[in-house]
């Protein structure tokens, strides 16, 4: 069976797969993780703040996002954003938003729900004495969060945050519903064009598997290092 396979198609498609496809995938993963972490941390702070209304809003947002399938959100958002943009800017017709911007915004908003839960656990893992000591030194609430609590919460949660980013890396392949050329999209296009579905999808699987595996191994190493510092 393997005799019929033409693995040379992979070699020929490599530049396209990596320069176009993987670059897009990694850029989207990195920016979505960064944006999701910032937005997610803000949500976590809202939930842990003393203000009930803020906490409720953040809670509802997180529950809402976590109750929807990602594909649906991506799809939905792509068609909705132009109209939201129109409404916000008061333009006469729906504004055009590129597929990249649309998918980036979607992933940031979706991942923020997950990152916020991770950061919330991280903040709660810091003993009450730490912010108390910061306050006793005269630091304001914001300063105590920024210089004392969040750096520790982030460090404690780094392995979990990276693990979530690995999941995100795999999830970015779902942008195929918007016909975007991410890594899987590129592989899929070559596969269709050359009629080499098995080879290309096998190769895509190997690449995703390898990158995720190496990253997971890195996380385990990191966990061991953090454990020593603590």
């Amino acid at each position, binding site marked *: 069976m393997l005799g019929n396979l033409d693995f040379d198609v992979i070699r020929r498609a490599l530049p396209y797969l990596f320069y176009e496809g993987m670059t897009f995938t990694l850029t989207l993963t990195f920016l979505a993780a960064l944006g999701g972490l910032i937005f997610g941390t803000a949500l976590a702070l809202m939930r842990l703040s003393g203000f009930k209304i803020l906490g409720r809003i953040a809670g509802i947002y997180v529950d809402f996002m976590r109750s929807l399938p990602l594909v649906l959100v991506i799809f939905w958002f792509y068609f909705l954003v132009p109209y939201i943009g129109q409404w916000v800017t008061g333009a006469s017709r729906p504004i055009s938003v590129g597929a990249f911007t649309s998918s980036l915004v979607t992933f940031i908003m979706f991942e923020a729900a997950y990152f916020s839960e991770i950061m919330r656990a991280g903040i709660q893992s810091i003993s009450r*004495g*730490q912010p*108390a*000591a910061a306050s*006793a*030194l*005269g630091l304001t609430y914001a300063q105590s969060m920024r*210089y*004392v609590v969040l750096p520790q919460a982030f460090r404690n949660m780094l392995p979990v945050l990276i693990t979530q980013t690995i999941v995100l890396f795999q999830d970015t392949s779902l942008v195929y519903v918007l016909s975007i050329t991410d890594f899987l999209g590129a592989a899929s296009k070559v596969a269709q064009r050359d009629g080499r579905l098995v080879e290309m999808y096998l190769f895509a699987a190997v690449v995703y598997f390898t990158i995720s595996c190496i990253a997971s191994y890195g996380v385990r190493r990191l966990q061991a290092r953090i454990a020593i510092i*603590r």
Partner: protein
Amino acid sequence: MIEISHVNKWYSPTFQVLTDCTTNVTKGEVVVVCGPSGSGKSTLIKCVNALEPFQSGDILVDGTKVNDPKTDLPKLRSRVGMVFQHFELFPHLKIIDNLCLAQEKVLGRGHDKAQAKGMQLLERVGLKEQAQKFPAQLSGGQQQRVAIARALAMDPIVMLFDEPTSALDPEMVSEVLDVMVDLAREGMTMMVVTHEMGFARKVANRVIFMDRGEIVEDAAKDDFFGKPRSDRAQKFLSKILSH
């Protein structure tokens, strides 16, 4: 310096932790607060810099009302040093950065000036060589000395100690007490919650004895150790001094 008058605090409508506490600490005075566990000593000292809220009564620190909503609490707290039972050094920062953080962010001191002040204080508590280490690399006694240095770096007008030696191994207690004794002898105003009666005997001006949220006895040191007026203080003293 610290005026505490008729302070009441409830954790819940039925659970009162502080009952009508009234006392004061004048400039240069060292006041030791003792009493059985659960008597509200730590809660009272935490009310002084508003780490714990209270429902009625007043506390004034250097003329500023702690429980006034208009009071700039961060500013007030930056002038009141506090040392905690569990040290509470910031584990993600080096020792020297633990001393510099609040100097730079709260007092607005330049980095070099803050470092110089930090090193000077580390030398004073005998830990200059540890400046570049992280808190977890130090022993408990060393960490607590760093915590004292960190509080002193803010040039406080008064120092609060909340059971500074009760989380320490016995052989480390004295190195911390030595620093505190020096501080007291230099004229620092101090309010100290502790069970170390040796420390109280050595440097305290007054001793406050608390039980069940009330200040039962508030007496000059010699009177307290000589002949405590209340039964409860007598019992407490005989128990902790018997061995």
